[in-house]
Structures are given as C-alpha cells and as structure tokens.
C-alpha cells in the first residue's frame, strides 16, 4: 500500500505539492491526472525516495520512505518498478544490458542463463521482438524506448509499478497499445500500479481509480463514475476535452 499524507514540496519559491494526501491500495491501478507541470512526476518520485518531501509522510508497505537508511531504501526500490517518461535507458548499453540491470537479486544478476531467460520474458511481456535485445537505445523509436523502459522496470519482479506519462509523445494508435499493455501487465503480474498521465481517455481505460492533482493538492479521487458525476468546475474543465467520448463509452 502506498500512502502520502500532507506532503509539501517546493523548489525555490515555487510550491509544487501543497499538502497532498494520496492513497493506493494493494493490487489496484490508480491514474494520477493533471495538466502538465502540476507536479505529478514530482509526486511519483517521492514514492521511491528520488525526491524527499519538505514535510509530510510518504509510506510504502508501512515504511516511511524519507527515513529509510540507504540499504533498506535500495531493498524497497527493488520492489518498485519505475517506468520513466522517455524510457531513461542507459544509452551506452544495449537493451539487453538495460533490462538485465533491472534484475534486483545479485546472484540472479550474475547468472547468465537466468538473465537471458528473464530478459526474453520481459521483452515478450512488453510485446517487443527478441532481436530488440541486441539494439542500442538510439536505434529504437519513442514507443519502443518506453516499452524497453517498462521491461527494465518489471525485470526485478516488482510488487509496484509506477508509470510516468506512459502515453505522452505517442500517436493515438500507439497510445492505445500502451494502455492495453498496462492493462495486460496488471493482469499477468498482479502489481499495484500508479499511472501518471494527462490523457483522460487512456486513464479511464486502465485505472480502477483516478485522482486529479490541481494546484498542489488532490482535487478529486474516486472511481470513473464519480468523476463523470462530479460538478466540480475544475474537474469538469479538465475532463471536457474527452467528455463526449467518455459519455459515449459509458
């Protein structure tokens, strides 16, 4: 379970998170929505301790992330897969080496047979061809980089998966394919997921619950029906873009 309570974060004079309360129950997929630049990625980075809150609590599995010693934080990170917005693949390594680096257990990491099998399995899970393993990140398209990034994130068999803008920069067809992949991974791996996005349609498609981050606070969190029914003008304005389509779906 992931729980953020009263999290504040500012960079210089800019307040990014202004008392965020956010909870993700075990096994569910939560989409965190909000316009660009509202601090969604900042919130996500707090969950694995890449950023520390100025105040407030960040708990994962009952552990206070900001207070964890280095070794325990590393152990926690092994249980959390993080798919970065642009993949963040190590550009001096092949896709194989990138995914292998995601294998958390040191003895497995040194076992070539295990690594070969695990990398092949991860590539299959993200619908990439086995030949991609030999390629360098520069040889991949944007969508393939994102998939390879997800493959690396799941290589350590995490309990949690955090997606940072998985569909941004993709054409509608590939964005739909990415949404389908998130759903497929949820079914096959039974992970708890947080999907940061500004894509309303895709979020309604993949998430069990949705939260909207607005001006540093969670404006509304709930199931898609609650979002559809709300009269909150801020939420309505954000949903309006895809509202017609969503109405048609429901």
């Amino acid at each position, binding site marked *: 379970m992931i729980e953020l309570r009263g999290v504040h974060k500012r960079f210089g004079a800019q307040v990014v998170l202004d008392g965020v309360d956010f909870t993700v129950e075990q096994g569910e997929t939560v989409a965190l929505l909000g316009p660009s630049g509202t601090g969604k990625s900042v919130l996500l980075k707090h969950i694995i301790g890449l950023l520390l809150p100025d105040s407030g609590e960040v708990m994962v599995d009952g552990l206070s992330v900001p207070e964890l010693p280095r070794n325990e934080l590393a152990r926690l*990170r092994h249980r959390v897969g993080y798919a970065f917005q642009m993949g963040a693949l190590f550009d001096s390594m092949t896709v194989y080496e990138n995914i292998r680096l995601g294998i958390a257990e040191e003895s497995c990491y040194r076992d070539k047979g295990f690594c070969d099998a695990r990398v092949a399995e991860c590539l299959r899970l993200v619908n990439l061809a086995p030949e991609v393993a030999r390629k360098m990140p520069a040889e991949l398209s944007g969508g393939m980089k994102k998939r390879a990034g997800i493959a690396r994130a799941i290589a350590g068999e995490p309990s949690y998966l955090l997606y940072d803008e998985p569909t941004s920069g993709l054409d509608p067809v590939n964005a739909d394919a990415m949404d389908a992949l998130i759903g497929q991974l949820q079914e096959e791996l039974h992970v708890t997921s947080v999907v940061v996005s500004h894509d309303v349609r895709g979020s309604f498609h993949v998430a069990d619950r949705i939260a909207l981050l607005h001006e540093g606070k969670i404006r509304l969190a709930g199931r898609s029906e609650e979002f559809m029914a709300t009269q909150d003008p801020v939420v309505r304005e954000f949903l309006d873009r895809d509202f017609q389509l969503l109405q048609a779906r429901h």
Partner: protein
Amino acid sequence: MESVSTTAELPVHVRMPRAFARPVLSACTHVGRFGMMLVELARALPEWRQWLPRTFEQCENVGYGSLFIVMLTAGFAGAVTSLQAGYQFTGSVPLYIMGAVVAESIILELGPVLTGLILGGRIGARYAAELGTMRVTEQIDALEALGRNPFSHLLLPRILAGVVMVPVLVMVANVTGLFTGWLAAKGSLGISDLDFAYGSRYFFRPFDLWYSLIKAEVFGIVVTVIPCYVGFTADQGAEGVGRAATRAVVLSSVTLLILDTVLAKLLL
C-alpha cells in the same frame, strides 16, 4: 518584473548584504554537496563488484584514449624547451647544461602540468557531459530507482581510472619530452649524446621523479573528481550540460594550476 522593481526599491543596507550573501550561500551549498559526494564515494568503496569492472573500461578510455594527445603535447614541449634553452644559453654556458634544463623542466613541471591540463580538457569535459546528460535524461534517477548506487556504478570507476592512469600518462609524457628534447638538442645545437646524458643526470635527484608522480596523482584526482561533481549536479536541459562541461574544464584547470604552485612551495 514585479520582483525586480521590489528589489530595486529595497534600501541599500538590505540590498548590499543580499548581493554578497547569494554567492556565499551558493558557494557554501556547493562545498556541502561536494563533501557529501566524497562521503558517498567512500561509502561506495566496499561495492567493488560494481566499480571494479567499470574501472577497467574507464582506464582504457582515459589511458589508451589519451595516449596520443599526451605524447604529442609532451613531444612538442620537450623539443621547444630544448630549442629555447639553446637560443638563450648557447655561448654563455656549457652545452651539457641543456640536458639538465630539458630534464628538470619536463620532469618537474611540463610533463605533469601539461598532461594534467590536456586531460582536464579531454576527460574533464567528457565526464561532465556524460554525467550531465545522464542527469538531465533521468538515467541517474533510473539507476537509483533500480536500487543501484550511482556512486559505485558511475563516479567511482571514473575517478579511480584517473587516479590510476594519470600518473602512468605523466611518466609517458616525461619520457617522450626527454626524448624529443634530446633529438632537438642534438639536431639543432649539435650536442653529443654523452653531453646531453651528463647534463640530464647532473642536477637530477630521485626525489624529482617522486615529485612528478605526486603531482600526477593529485592532478589525476583534480581532473576527475571536479568534472564528476559538476556533471553529477548539472542543471536541466542541453544548456545545463554545456555549462557543466565548460565549468568542469575551467574549474579543474584553475584548481590544477593553484595546486601546482602549492605543491612546489610545500615539496621543493
């Protein structure tokens, strides 16, 4: 605009301390972060399984990759020293002194300092740009998110490669400089091999080589630690990476020259 006019309206006794306080605070922040980086590097030392194989890769990069430019620079430095010494001393002092001038200049100063400056430019810019790019493309965040230590994976191998390879390169530079100095003296001044060798040994003390090695070791640390810090803490964007590369070269070169003077005062 509002904040600018507000600041301008502040009384002088508030504005002046503010103007001084900002750079002082910034400098203190950097000192603190630099210190923290050194602590993290020390804590990463036991993770030898991570840094050892990568150190070999970086050694090849720093050592073999820099060999040509180091030999070229030292070769010309040796020849020019010899020719200029010949221009100044011919007719006033015995020719064998040429050997002493070339040997002492190369071993004590030109070999270590020129090699340090060349490497500060070559590997310093490279380290800062590599790490800066990794920072702005979230590769360093990705490494941390995978539960891996960026200090043992990225920084320690680069720094250790400098610590190991820069002294080796300085010794190569010393030999190259002496060789070209001897060739230049022989070719343009007609000094005999025996006279050159006699002169080279006349003022030479074994401590000169140790001094050269100590300088090389210190410079090896300077031209790797500073660029690693600057690249690791680079600002966002391509401009930030460019700024980091420039700052790394300037900072490491200036620090190297300052330490060159300090070591001369302390050790000679």
